[in-house]
């Protein structure tokens, strides 16, 4: 599963993307955030306020309770400020 990070989430983690293989117990977007925070201080820092983090699966906005099964690409980013 490919994971992408944008804006300050990317800066805090120190990379723009990576391929991960979370354990099967990680079922939802929220579970994935929880699992990522255990991977190091940079992840804990990026996800320290999980309510602020937005997520997308395969280019569609999703909520924390959305299942990640079947996802090819999951992205995490701050609230958007375009326009």
């Amino acid at each position: 599963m490919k994971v992408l990070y944008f804006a300050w989430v990317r800066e805090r983690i120190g990379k723009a993307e990576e391929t991960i293989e979370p354990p099967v117990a990680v079922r939802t977007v929220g579970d994935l955030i929880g699992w990522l925070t255990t991977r190091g201080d940079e992840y804990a820092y990026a996800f320290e306020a999980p309510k602020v983090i937005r997520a997308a699966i395969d280019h569609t906005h999703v909520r924390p309770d959305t299942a990640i099964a079947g996802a090819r690409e999951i992205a995490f980013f701050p609230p958007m400020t375009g326009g």
Partner: protein
Amino acid sequence: MTAAVTIRIQTADFDVAQEIAALTNSRTDIGAVVTFSGICRGGQGGDATTALTLEHYPGMAEAEIARHAEEAMTRWPLTGVTIVHRVGRIVPGENIMVVLTASAHRQAAFQAAEFLMDYLKAHAPFWKREETADGTGWIAAKTDDDEAAARWDKD
């Protein structure tokens, strides 16, 4: 004639008159064109923006914009929609983005342009990093942008 949707994400600046011409070219069924240009603001003092750097999520940004353009087409009788959004470094006074809507009627063009702007602000995956004399940092999202977008949600 069918409705034309043009979506571009680019580092280069754009010319609003050219975009209007492209949208109206060789058609005589358009009575109203509304454009919204978002421009980089500057100012005085240490906290004034000296430059913005725009980052986007390639693939998803285009998809989100296209989805909202299609939604606008189903809600209002539009003859065309053009959205150009720049990425990269932009200094005060420069264009950030433009939305154009064309219709036979002015209310449709106005409402669709407002709808698209509200949704782009709240949903399109772009992020602005700001440079000021005092330092740099990511611009925080405004909660009223979410509220502006929510007013278009159907029950």
